[in-house]
C-alpha cells in the first residue's frame, strides 16, 4: 500500500521518511497539496483520518500541517509548512468533502487561512472569542481569552 502511495505522490514529493514500518511521511509544497490529495482520492487510496496543525513556535516561524491518510494498517502523512505570520493553505474539500471540519479547526485554533474552504464559521470556539487569538499557537496566553459570559 505504501509503495502505491509513494508512486501516486512522486510528482510532488520533496522528501520522504518512513518513521515506522507502516508509515510514510511525504513532504510537499503547499501549492501542490490539492493535486496530491486528488491523486490519492482518484486512486481510492485510503481515507482522510485527520489534519493535525503543529505550531513550530515563534523562533522557527512556521506552522506545519499534517494530512493523515489511512488505508488498513498503512498511514501516509502529507507534510506541508507555511510561514506563521501568513499561514495559508488551499482547501482540499473539493476532493475530500469531510475535510471541512478539520479546516474550520485549523482556521480558529491556529490561524491558518484555508483558501476556498466552503464553510468558514467557527466550529468549536465561542462566538465572543476575540479575533486573531489562536489557542493552539505556542505563544497563546490565557489572559488573551475572554471570560465566559463576559462582554470583553
Amino acid at each position, binding site marked *: 500500500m505504501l509503495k502505491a502511495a509513494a508512486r501516486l505522490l512522486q510528482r510532488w514529493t520533496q522528501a520522504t521518511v518512513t518513521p515506522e514500518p507502516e508509515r510514510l511521511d511525504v513532504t510537499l509544497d503547499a501549492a501542490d497539496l490539492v493535486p496530491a490529495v486528488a491523486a490519492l482520492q482518484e486512486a*481510492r487510496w485510503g481515507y482522510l483520518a*485527520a489534519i493535525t496543525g503543529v505550531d513550530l513556535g515563534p523562533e522557527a516561524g512556521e506552522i506545519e500541517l499534517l494530512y493523515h491518510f489511512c488505508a488498513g494498517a498503512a*498511514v501516509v502523512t502529507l507534510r506541508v509548512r507555511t510561514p506563521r505570520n501568513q499561514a495559508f493553505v488551499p482547501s482540499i474539500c473539493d476532493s475530500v468533502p469531510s475535510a471541512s471540519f478539520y479546516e474550520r479547526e485549523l482556521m480558529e485554533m491556529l490561524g491558518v487561512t484555508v483558501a476556498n474552504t466552503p464553510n468558514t464559521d467557527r466550529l*468549536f470556539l465561542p462566538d465572543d472569542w476575540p479575533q486573531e487569538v489562536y489557542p*493552539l499557537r505556542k505563544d497563546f496566553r490565557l489572559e488573551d481569552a475572554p471570560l465566559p459570559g*463576559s462582554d470583553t
Partner: protein
Amino acid sequence: MTAEREPFRIPIGPQHPSLKEPGHFEFSVDGEIVTQASLRLGYVHRGIEKGAEQRSWVQALYLLERVCGICSHVHATAYCLGVEKLAGVEAPPRAQAIRSLVAELERIHSHLLWLGVAAHEAGFDMLFMHSWRDRETVMNLLEGITGNRVNYSANLLGGVKCDIDQRLADAIRAGLDYLEERTQHYLDVVLNDALFLRRTRGIGVMSREDAERLGVVGPTARASGVARDVRVDAPYAAYRTLPVQIVTEMAGDLQARFIVRVRELFETYRLIRTLLDTLPEGELTVRIPRRIPPGEAISRVEAPRGELFYYLKSNGSDQPERIKIRTPTLPNFASVLVLTVGRQLADVPMILAGIDPCFSCNDRMVAIHDTGEGRDRRWTWEQLRQHGIEVYR
C-alpha cells in the same frame, strides 16, 4: 407574489439534539424535507489538547482519559500505546491482555447504552429501560476490576494498574452468560419487532461508496458493508494474537446499524472469554522514562464508535509538544450532514442517534461558574488543585 421563497430554517440544539449532549444543527427545510444541514460544536469544548501541552506525560494520561465519559479507556489506551512507542518500551503481555479485556467490557457498556438511547429516540422506552438495566451488569464488572464505574483509570504508561484474579474471572464469565442471553433477545427485537422496523428499515441509507468517500468509521461504516476495524487492520495490544471477526451488514440503513452493534456484542463476549482463558502470566508494568525521547507517533485504536486517532509529538522533555485527537464521531458527523438532505425532518433524530454520536469526545478552559459571586471566574491549575485539597481535606 414573492418570486423566491426563503428557505425555512429549523435549529436543532444546542440542548440535546438527540442524545443528552449539546451540539447545534441547523436544517433548512422545504415542507418536511431537509434541503441543507450545518453543524456547530464546541458547547463542551474544554481545551484538552492545549491543556495536555502544559502537563507532564503522566498527568496528561489522566486528562485524556476524561475526553469521554463513555469510552474513557480507549483514549487512555491509544495514548499509552503511543507514548510507549515513542519511549521504545512495550507493556508486558498480561498488561496488553487486560487492556483489551477492559476495552471489550467498555464496548459492551457503550453499545448497550447506545441501544437504549436509540430505542428511546424511536419511542421504544421499554427497550431503553431493559438495555440500561442489563448494562448495570457490565458496569458492576468494570467497577469490580478497576474500582470505578466510569473513567476506570486501568492504564498506566508502561502497563496497567489492575489485575484479574480467579474470583473476578468467574464473575465476568457469569455476567457474560446473562448478557449473552439478553443480547439474543435484543437481536430478535431489532430483526423482527414490527413497530421498531418501521422506524429503522430503509431509513438513513448510506451506500458503500458514500461510506468510503466520507471516511466514516466503526459500526457506522460496517453497517454499509465497509469492513473497517482497527483491531483487524492494524492490530494492537492483545489483538495481535487474538483475531477479531468483523461484523458487517450490506443494507446501510438504520436497521443495519442496529444489527451490526448487537451482533458485535456476541463477538465481544467471545473475545472476553478467550482473553480470560488465555491470560498470560507475568508482570503488569514495565519502567518508562519520565522524559520521553523526541519524535512523533501515531496511535490508532478501535473505540466502540470506530477508529480513534492520536498524533503525539515529543520534544524530549517531560511534557508533550503536541497531542492531536481525532475521535470517531467527527467523520461520522460529516455523514449525518450528507445523509439527512432529502429526507424527512422527523427522521433526523434517529439518523443522528444512528451514528452513536459522542459530543464531548469532539469538544475538547477551565471556567468555574460561581453562583455565590454571581460571575464566572477563571482559576489557574494551582488554584484549582488547592481548592480540591481544601474541599476534600
